[in-house]
């Protein structure tokens, strides 16, 4: 356990040390220390995961807020593994990614420091079992990530995105404080362990706490309708930061929800259905808007919302299983949801790294001007393809495993004797299937528009090399992870016994293991069959003369006649027109020899366009009435102070 304490502090030490070294060594120091931290974290975390026994330590016991207790229980251990490994990968990747910024006078030192702080605070968040210190760590996490988002603070849109993120995080923390405050008042302690009793005795209270906590933590996680900060903050941040934020940090929101659930024990039906339905909506909403996006990182941000939804579907299924006392459903649901946390962090970080590599070489995130990058950037393209297939949940990669567990849990739930459950589950199954096919549409779009075909502009044309090894290597490792989890699921699922056991007692996992073994056999056989086909093809190597693409008789094709991302998504989106706010930018061709004409379609988030913006406007309108008070005149401010003092005095004299 002491090892873990060192691991927790190692990144901070690295961050501080990096302040005193030369510019181009700063990130190396940070990644070295995050490596040490990862190794030191994994020792106790793996110990807990495999043995199922919790470790705990209280470095400070006697304060007015209760003891500062660090506990590594199986749930925390699982998150520690995700955070430390993914954090190290991002640190490694940042070495290559940040090189163009080194000599531009950008503040690399603060970037390194805040990155380290983010890692440490996330590790602290998942282990601290005291409400007050949890909130402190939570705030450090939010603030350090805010500073990471606004790294390129000379750009206006980056600052705007950062401020939006900050506001969302503070609404989030408001709800979390409210949750904990209610719990503290009722239990008389700030220790998580003491909350258990008040939550388990009163169902109404537990429901209230869960909903409040779900809103608070859900804003962090990005459940619809609290998702709006994600598509702004992720594109603004440097790619490895987006990777960590999307892959790891938003999962701390899921961690919070799971922790409350842990304390509640058996959830009520109401909150179980609530979680499942909100999650299905989030997943559909996320992937739908992802299809509309042309900005690579915005698109990936919307996919985070989708995947948080899938995780939520797993958790919701597990909760329904608990509520109806149907153990196999609970086990499969929680196992699928928790495994998807790991899976999503792997392929999402991989995809963000890929998007970052493309951004570094082309200086654009707009897919419509890219194309043909697979020739200049073969490694990035290959790993991005692996990530795309994995995120669509296709075998033999990891996304399939968790989605299969969730599907199977829901199918098991059909046997529960309840009409509502039957209808909700079957529609959720259909929803998950729809999400899967829409993800295929989205990722075939982004991969093929970016990497295949011909370059659509000079930006893509001028790329002549792939990114450096320090960026390719982390992508390769992550791609390997996606494949390994996909073909050895029966091994991975054993590590899930303990975390799932936190929610479901007497877990009958053998059924799940044998299911996974079946999948493993099929996937391995499939890979071997593919290998055989490739070998046969190579042996029977026919000569293949090159010719230009068939253009239906037109033999001078150029890059402008290719399909675009908008046109690729158009048949699908035209079916769902009412769900968007479309903004057209058209300049029609005129005269006999039209010169400049263009057409572009931009789709706005309906929640933002019809709810958030009007809401913010009305608040602004109301608050602007108070503008007169703040007029910049110092004398008047002193007067305010005087008036305030006089009122207080009168109040004290007459009321006190």
């Amino acid at each position, binding site marked *: 356990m002491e090892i873990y304490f060192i691991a927790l502090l190692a990144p901070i030490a690295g961050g501080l040390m990096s302040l005193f070294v030369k510019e181009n060594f700063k990130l190396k120091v940070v990644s070295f220390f995050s490596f040490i931290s990862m190794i030191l974290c994994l020792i106790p975390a793996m110990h807990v995961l495999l043995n199922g026994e919790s470790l705990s330590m209280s470095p400070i016991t006697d304060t007015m807020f209760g003891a500062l207790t660090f506990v590594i229980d199986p749930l925390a251990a699982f998150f520690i593994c995700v955070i430390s490994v993914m954090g190290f990968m991002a640190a490694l990747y940042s070495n290559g990614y940040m090189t163009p910024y080194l000599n531009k006078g950008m503040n690399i030192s603060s970037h390194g420091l805040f990155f380290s702080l983010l890692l440490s605070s996330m590790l602290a968040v998942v282990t601290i079992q005291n409400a007050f210190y949890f909130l402190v760590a939570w705030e450090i996490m939010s603030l350090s990530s805010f500073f990471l988002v606004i790294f390129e603070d000379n750009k206006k849109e980056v600052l705007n995105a950062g401020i939006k993120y900050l506001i969302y995080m503070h609404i989030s923390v408001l709800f979390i404080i409210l949750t904990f405050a209610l719990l503290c008042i009722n239990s008389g302690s700030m220790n998580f362990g003491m909350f258990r009793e008040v939550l388990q005795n009163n169902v109404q209270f537990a429901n209230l706490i869960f909903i409040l906590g779900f809103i608070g933590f859900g804003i962090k996680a990005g459940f619809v309708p609290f998702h709006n900060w994600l598509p702004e903050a992720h594109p603004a941040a440097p790619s490895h930061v987006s990777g960590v934020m999307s892959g790891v940090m938003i999962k701390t929101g899921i961690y919070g929800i799971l922790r409350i659930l842990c304390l509640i024990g058996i959830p009520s039906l109401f909150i179980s259905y609530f979680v499942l339905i909100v999650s299905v909506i989030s997943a559909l909403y996320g992937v739908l808007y992802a299809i509309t996006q042309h900005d690579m990182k915005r698109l990936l941000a919307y996919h985070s919302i989708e995947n948080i939804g899938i995780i939520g579907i797993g958790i919701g299924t597990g909760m329904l299983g608990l509520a109806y006392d149907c153990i196999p459903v609970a086990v499969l649901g929680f196992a699928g949801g928790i495994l998807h946390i790991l899976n999503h962090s792997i392929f999402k970080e991989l995809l963000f790294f890929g998007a970052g590599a493309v951004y570094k070489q082309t200086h654009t995130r707009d897919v419509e001007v890219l194309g043909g990058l697979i020739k200049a950037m073969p490694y990035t393209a290959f790993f991005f393809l692996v990530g795309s297939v994995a995120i669509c949940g296709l075998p033999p990669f990891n996304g399939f495993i968790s989605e299969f567990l969730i599907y199977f849990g829901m199918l098991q739930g059909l046997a529960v004797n309840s009409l509502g459950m039957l209808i909700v589950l079957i529609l959720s199954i259909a929803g998950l299937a729809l999400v899967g096919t829409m993800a295929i549409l989205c990722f075939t779009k982004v991969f093929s528009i970016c990497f295949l075909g011909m370059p659509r502009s000079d930006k893509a044309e001028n790329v002549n090399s792939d990114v450096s090894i320090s960026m390719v290597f982390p992508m390769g490792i992550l791609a390997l992870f996606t494949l390994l989890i996909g073909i050895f699921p029966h091994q991975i699922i054993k590590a899930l016994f303990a975390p799932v056991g936190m929610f479901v007692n007497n877990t009958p996992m053998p059924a799940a293991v044998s299911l996974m073994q079946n999948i493993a056999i*099929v996937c391995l056989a499939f890979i071997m069959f593919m290998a055989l086909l490739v070998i046969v093809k190579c042996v029977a190597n026919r000569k293949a003369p090159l010719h230009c693409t068939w253009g239906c008789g037109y033999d001078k094709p150029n890059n402008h006649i290719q399909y675009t991302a908008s046109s690729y998504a158009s048949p699908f989106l035209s079916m769902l027109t009412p769900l968007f706010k479309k903004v057209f930018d058209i300049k029609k061709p005129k005269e006999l020899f039209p010169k400049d004409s263009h057409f572009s379609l931009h789709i706005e988030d309906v929640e933002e366009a019809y709810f958030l913006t009007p809401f913010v406007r009305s608040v602004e309108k109301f608050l602007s009435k108070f503008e007169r008070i703040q007029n910049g005149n110092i004398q008047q401010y002193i007067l305010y102070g005087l008036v305030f003092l006089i009122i207080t005095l009168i109040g004290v004299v007459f009321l006190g």
Partner: protein
Amino acid sequence: MILSLINLIILLFAPFLVIGVIKKTKAFWAGRKGVSIWQPLRDFVRLMRKDYVISETTSWIFKFSPMVTFATVIFAGLFVPMVQGYSVINMPGGFILFSYILGLGKFFSLIAAMDTGSSFEGMGASREACFTTIVEPAFFIIMASIIALTGNFTFHGLSQVIANAGGLGVLIIVLAVLALFVMLLTECCRVPVDDPTTHLELTMIHEVMILDNSGQDLGLITWAAGIKMVILESLIAALIIPMNLSLGYSLLAFLGVIFGLAVVIGTLESGIARLRMSHVFEFIFSMSSFALIILALVAIKIYGN
């Protein structure tokens, strides 16, 4: 073991004959003599012996993808119950793996089409991707409803509908057959969704995606498309044919359904024209309505009292 072998033989060789029967049927309705039903097999053999030309725009994706498409349909075929309801791989939740493996094949065929940089192939890919988003959820609703009804998590649940639902089961089967038939027409790109013999690239879906493929690659793709058709026909067969027939009768009934459906498809193609692209969506959505009615019927059956 023998059943596995029979299944594999049907899976690999029936596709050519099914396509041949469709062509023969169309010729019959058009009053022509038509080509021999062995012609698709001859075409395939000729394609496999030919050299091929590839587009200079393409990358390794283009060469790799036909193999993925082929491998995925073969593996998906192993899950499907055929003669005597026997499937080579029989696992609980098999239909999920089945759909996702086919999804993998689709993913690669879509990016291979986009790899050529042709606007026509992009158009086909975008339509194909769009149709899938309508078909898959409906398929999952049907499978999940049947699992809820029969409690059997494998594809064998398909043949137990009557046993579990009695009279209502007949209605469920009729609707399921209709829904799967729409799925078959969509996934295999037959009239009225798509016309495989059309000569106008603008209106094609599947054919336009493979405009640039030639030689072996084209051979593999057409073979895979045929196998996919046999797979979907087998699902319909599993709904109709009782499981407890003897080997001979079962084989006869199975082949009867497979080729019977081919005759139906051929007749349909002779009788009606393909729909306008905007109406195709409405046609495919009929599958979703069938699926929802099946769900409602299953709910009535289980919670009717």
